[in-house]
């Protein structure tokens, strides 16, 4: 690890100000991606701004079917929330299988979203849940927030503060892990509201998480696994690597969608 200067802040405003003042600062939340990257000398931020002590970023509120989760809330806290489990079983399920226990207890919603790893779980969820990303500056729709591989709509001095969504009637998540890294090689989040069905896919898309619109249309007609028979994805739009070719991933999306549906 290269040397860096550590700052602990107590408010979002203070963090935003420091971001402007520092040379090449990085925001530290749960540190489950950033710290290993720094240890491997693949990242060398001049300053680390620790958001971990900002109370305003923590907590879950559920009002009827309206859900708002602070960006600093850990995956384990979301998973443990009885209210989340009641209104959005898919998110409850997803936060229980995200990473490993250390990641779930240290890593945060905001930290994961800001990194937008193409193999992370949340991108599938926020797309399917039609979530709104609240930042220190504005509100951004999930579809606009996710720009590409490790890329988001966040500006340099912008910090995620919360995520909100209306809980769907039914939701489910299923993923297939990369055998080595255990990241999602394909994760599918299915959410059914009164009028629409949304299907968010992570780990498989060449440009990051995406909505599988053909599946959404088919499931809006008939919300059952058989509606997905005969549907396929174009492998040329899929990611390919050592562990999963584009063709394999295209297959996994359909299989995981069926299994997510079975849970929803």
């Amino acid at each position, binding site marked *: *690890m*290269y040397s860096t200067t550590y700052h602990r802040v107590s408010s979002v405003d203070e963090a935003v100000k420091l971001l402007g003042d520092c040379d090449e600062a990085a925001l530290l939340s749960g540190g489950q991606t950033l710290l290993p990257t720094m240890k491997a000398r693949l990242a060398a931020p001049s300053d680390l701004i620790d958001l971990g002590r900002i109370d305003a970023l923590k907590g879950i509120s559920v009002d009827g079917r309206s859900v708002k989760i602070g960006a600093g809330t850990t995956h384990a806290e979301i998973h443990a929330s009885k209210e989340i489990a009641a209104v959005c079983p898919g998110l409850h399920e997803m936060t229980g299988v995200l990473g490993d226990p250390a990641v779930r207890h240290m890593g945060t919603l905001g930290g994961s979203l800001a990194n937008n790893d193409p193999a992370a779980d949340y991108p599938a969820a926020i797309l399917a849940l039609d979530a709104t990303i609240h930042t220190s500056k504005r509100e951004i729709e999930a579809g606009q927030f996710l720009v590409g591989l490790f890329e988001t709509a966040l500006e340099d001095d912008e910090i995620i503060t919360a995520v909100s969504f209306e809980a769907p009637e039914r939701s489910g998540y299923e993923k*297939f892990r990369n*055998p080595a890294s255990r990241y999602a090689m394909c994760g599918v989040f299915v959410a059914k509201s009164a009028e629409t069905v949304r299907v968010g896919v992570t780990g498989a898309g060449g440009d990051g998480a995406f909505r599988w619109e053909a599946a959404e249309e088919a499931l809006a007609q008939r919300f059952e696994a058989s509606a997905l028979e005969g549907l396929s994805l174009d492998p040329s739009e899929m990611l390919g690597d*050592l562990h999963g*070719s584009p063709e*394999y991933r295209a297959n996994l999306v359909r299989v995981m969608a069926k299994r997510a549906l079975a849970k929803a």
Partner: protein
Amino acid sequence: MGIEGIGARVARKEDKRFITGKGRYVDDMVVPGMKFAAFVRSPHAHAKINGIDTSAAEGMPGVIGILNGKQISEDGIGDLICGWMIHSKDGSPMNMGRWRPLAEDRVRYVGDAVAVVVADSKARARDAADAVVVDYEELPAVTGAVDALKDGAPQIHPEAENNLIFDWELGNGEETDEALKNAAHITEMKIVNNRLIPNAMETRAALGVYNAAEDHYTCWTTSQNPHVARLVMSAFYNVAPENKLRIIAPDVGGGFGSKIYIYPEEIVCLWASKRTGVPVKWVADRTEAFLADAHGRDHVTTVKLATDADHKVTGLKVDTVANLGAYMSLFSSATPTYLYASLLSGQYAFPAVHANVRTAYTNTAPVDAYRGAGRPEATYVVERIMETAARELGLSPAEFRRKNFVREFPHQTPVIMNYDTGDFDASLDAALKEADYEGFPARKAEAEKRGMKRGIGMSCYIEACGIAPSKAVGSLGAGVGLWESAEVRVNAVGTIEVLTGSHSHGQGHETTFAQLVSGRIGVPIDSISIVHGDTDKVQMGMGTYGSRSGAVGMSAIAKALDKVEAKAKKIAAHQLEADENDIVIEDGTLKVAGTDRSLAWNEVTLAAYTGHNLPDGMEPGLKEGAFYDPQNFTFPAGCYICEVEVDPETGRTEIIQFVAADDFGTIINPTIVEGQVHGGIAQGIGQAMLEGCLYDAESGQLVTASYQDYCMPRADDLPSFKVSTTETPCTSNPLGIKGCGEAGAIGSPPAFMNALTDAVGHNDLTMPATPQSVWAAINGTTPDAFA
């Protein structure tokens, strides 16, 4: 035997310090004035070095010295050696290229060490190493052994034309060809044994300390055989003569073979300590471990099995190309030859076996012995083709094997080995019963109803441990003898220290070796200490690998105990006025048999040291040493049965059950043996299902250089193993021990692959059988990255 003697399930003495984080590893060692080394390593697979510019790095904070290959040559440090001479079938000696501790004019794999920076902190050493500018002229690279042997391939060493190191053979070729000619059926397969990266929990490390006042060197290092390290560093690398070089291998966190060898880094740390005048410590980070530890396996084989009309095997013909990497590591030549081809007869009475092995240099990390060392490769060939032949012939795989089992012992195979004892029916029967083999069709039908594909497969392995009679290995080209030594030091109060040339790096010697002594003398294991891993404390020894510490190391202790007991009996007989032949040692007492006259063990040991009342002419003291040279290899054998279920939609394979029935001869501690079997099977399943080492064929970059891509087995990849043992004691050593350290890793890959290919319905699968490749095998679509 006592409650802590041989056969007792004693909890491991060493676990308290390991489990509570109080182990003392090389990285825990701190000496005054200690500084830190960081290596500059080649980013290219093959390149000429046109120059090294250290000007920017030299001025960086904390830098004490930057040393390179030219300087290490100037100081007369020798080439790294391969300690086993193999001759090609035309009689010529192997074509060995030079391996310098720091590359001087050419780098030959990604990770090849070029220079070393010594600085006052690890981070500063790394920073300065990153600032060293090496002028590389890139050359074409080749990573696969088959490609390396082709005409026109990039040439890696001038000494090895076409990268061929040797072209060697073993067995009765003419008889084998005759068997193939007259066969009723021939089964033929191409078999790839995938390359693996060892990944011991503790990475390699060295701390070199040169004491100028005494002209003496000390090296703490992660070694499985510190005396061999001292011998090689003295005799070949000219680091220092043996009396001025102390090697200490303290607690070592796993080796699996990768810590047998003497690598450039420990030589450089010692040499750099003299050059810079400060103690120099280096601890590999995980990336360095991936790049520069000796890798394992990497064979490409074609094999033919001939059977007659009665389904008896009449011949086995094997042609193997083995990848030895960029340099010949210490025992790299022995692994794909005498440790491999000599096991190709398996558990079977094959009348004819012939193996041809060609080895090649490639632009990859050196390849050497890794848990099993040649025997997993042999077992994989034999057990995959036995299962395949049975399927082709429409026979039960169990009965086809049974038909060909060796049943008379000793049995001379066509490939050197002489099996002393075994009962292969017993382990097969035990495994079939435990696995409910008969009930498999019903289980398969039930799985089919759920849309799942079930398969069952077995492996009847035999391997060779307890390496080995020194005269025999000497005649086969080994540069060393493979005996072991022990010294039993009895203290005046009756407590005992056992000094052993074996080295424990996870095996539990501090417990099992003490159990042997406790069983013999009758003192508790808490009164017995096992001393190992320090060349200043322990007499010459050969170390731990090849499951030899029980069969060879403990046999040496037994021999030393014989001498201790004989002297103690003489003292007791003298004091009890009895004949020494009437003295028996039981439960910590020396008794005159058939009487109530006795002396406590500590009364006799005290007498030995007071010297007040000893037989005339007897020297005081009670301390004896012994060297034990084995009479033969030992032959652990067993039967493994694996049952899998494949999800055809994703290619994910779940291991439903894994049964192991092993014959290890005499067992010292069943709990430790079970642990060895569990770990071995996990490693074998890792090879078969998860672990694939991949170099990019064009650039020679190691693609699987971290745990993001190199898949180690985790607990949830594995079932709860069903392990049991049958016991036919080894006849060639005094304890009847065969060895258990590698069997799991040897026997399990073919059992898994036989089960998986049974489930999938065809043989077109290679290790590691990842979900993607299994899915592709079922659907016939995607090429597999690892294939």
